[in-house]
């Protein structure tokens, strides 16, 4: 694999992630169902996570572990930080989604609907 291919892959990853973000935004902004909005948010999250991973991606990289014999391996290592970030972000996203779903249950009980434009008792 030459360097161009790596760039192509990188661009592919970026493009995919941006596409995901846009799809998610589309869902959030146009879908009336609360569930779909939450799904949209999750898709955005997914896109962003992909973006993060893409940054740290190195073709044929090694695990980011310093160990005897690999002292100078840092050039070959996959950047560990984005991965750590993504892991954290996934957890957070999970938490938020859970809360959101719980709220949706409550909303459904209260309003008997899942349409977001029918749930606006609080306004102005």
């Amino acid at each position, binding site marked *: 694999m030459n360097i161009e291919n790596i760039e192509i892959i990188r661009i592919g990853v970026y493009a995919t992630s941006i596409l995901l973000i846009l799809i998610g935004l589309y869902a959030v902004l146009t879908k009336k169902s609360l569930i779909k909005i939450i799904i949209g948010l999750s898709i*955005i999250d997914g896109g962003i996570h992909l973006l993060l991973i893409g940054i740290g991606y190195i073709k044929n990289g090694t695990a980011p572990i310093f160990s005897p014999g690999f002292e100078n391996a840092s050039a070959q290592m996959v950047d560990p*930080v984005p991965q750590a970030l993504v892991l954290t972000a996934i957890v957070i996203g999970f938490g938020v989604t859970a809360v959101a779903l719980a709220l949706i249950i*409550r909303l459904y009980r209260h309003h008997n609907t899942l349409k977001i434009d029918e749930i606006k008792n609080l306004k102005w």
Partner: protein
Amino acid sequence: MVGSPVLLIAIPLLAAFLIPLLGIFWKELVRIIPGLVLGYLTILSASLYIDVLNTGTIVETIAGWRAPWGINLVFSPLTGFLATLMTFIGFIIWLYSYRFKRNVEFEAAKKYFIFLMLLVAGSIGIVITGDIFNQFVFIEIVGISAYALTAFYTGRNSAEAAFKYLIMGSLSASALLIAIILIYSQLGTLNMAEIAANIHNMPPQYRVTAMIFFIIGIGVEAEIFPLNGWAPDAYTEAPGPVGSAFAGIVVKAGIYAMVRMMFTLFDISGPMQILIIIGMITLVVAETSALRQVQLKRMLAYSSIGQMGLVLVAFGMGTKAGVFAALFLMLNHAIIKPLLFFSGSYLVFNSKEKNISEMSGLGKLMPFTAAFFALGSFAIVGLPPFAGFWSKLSVLTAAANDGLLLIIAIVLLVSIVEIVYYFRVINRIYFFKFDKATSVVPHKPRVNALIAMAILAILILVIGFYPDSVSEILNRASEDLLNTPDYIKNVLSTGQSLTY
């Protein structure tokens, strides 16, 4: 050294997990532990803060790794000041809500205190962390606990408020993450000091884009104009003490994150048009929206948003005087708004539909609560000799020094609007006849709530009569914010470096 700044985050987090466990043994512990924790945190934070004022910034490195490898906590005159303020307000909120839901249910109180602990921990974390991703995590902690607290009451519209908050919060969190990605991809670091040191190596196009995403990411917590749709709903629907926690703690953290980003991270010096514009719009829209509110808490929420707008304007001036004024405003707002929410929620509690129009004559029946509300209103609209006046005066003198006459005029006009809606409420509470059809026979505030309110009221009076009591602190804090090189030096020179 009395302790480490880490404890400021670790202890409440730990407490949040211990509360349900210890609650099994003795239910009262659920209420007592948060108080102990917050009280200890206040003392710890205050003593650390005094240390900081005497000896200089404390930079705590987690696991001993120097930035940029390790995450570090920065306890400087500015962050220390805010952390102390937050822990103190947290303690007052605990004092106020000590017997919250006592007679109703144990579970509810448990949840409330767990999330309150998380909220405080997260907010302190936002302030004292030196790492942007860490800040993101704390913002999310605050967010999740805030959603939960907003949705605390069942059977009302609280879930709706929480859901709106959640949508906006999630979107902004995504934006924040994008900003972090941008910075990381360009600079390869997440440490604020290091970013600040290298920010000018970043291509301007990226820099500005990152900043925009940052503004959006933090803007939801900081309640800037188009991103604050959640705030009135959440303040209205959340329990009273939670409203004051939002106004007194969460927003402060958000504002801090924003100005830290602008001043330090992106190392902007001089006036920041963007902050001034956003702040002015926030101020005007919020205060005008507050004028015709039917519900008291919603009115208070808009007022809170407006005040934050003013804070941003003051920060946006970028001068020492402006920063001083902004911090002064934050301090006063952190004291006054909880007082208003505390007393206001008793007023709301005694009106059947939560409407302002149903609070007629409550002042005679609950004199202390009403007096505290009146005091808070006087202070927040900036009538001397109460605390709010001096901060407003500082803002105006700062603006005048920069020649921003139009801003002075608008701020003052908006203040008139503010006066109108606050005084309408005061008039109604005091000078209208009590009506049984609309109000319930008052539930008197409990002693602990009265003490909490009294402490805040005394602070308002002390600052009002003797504003110099806080001016030194604020001076140090504002110098700290403006002095980016020192921040970088302090952070990067502490802890061990990564060597093999």
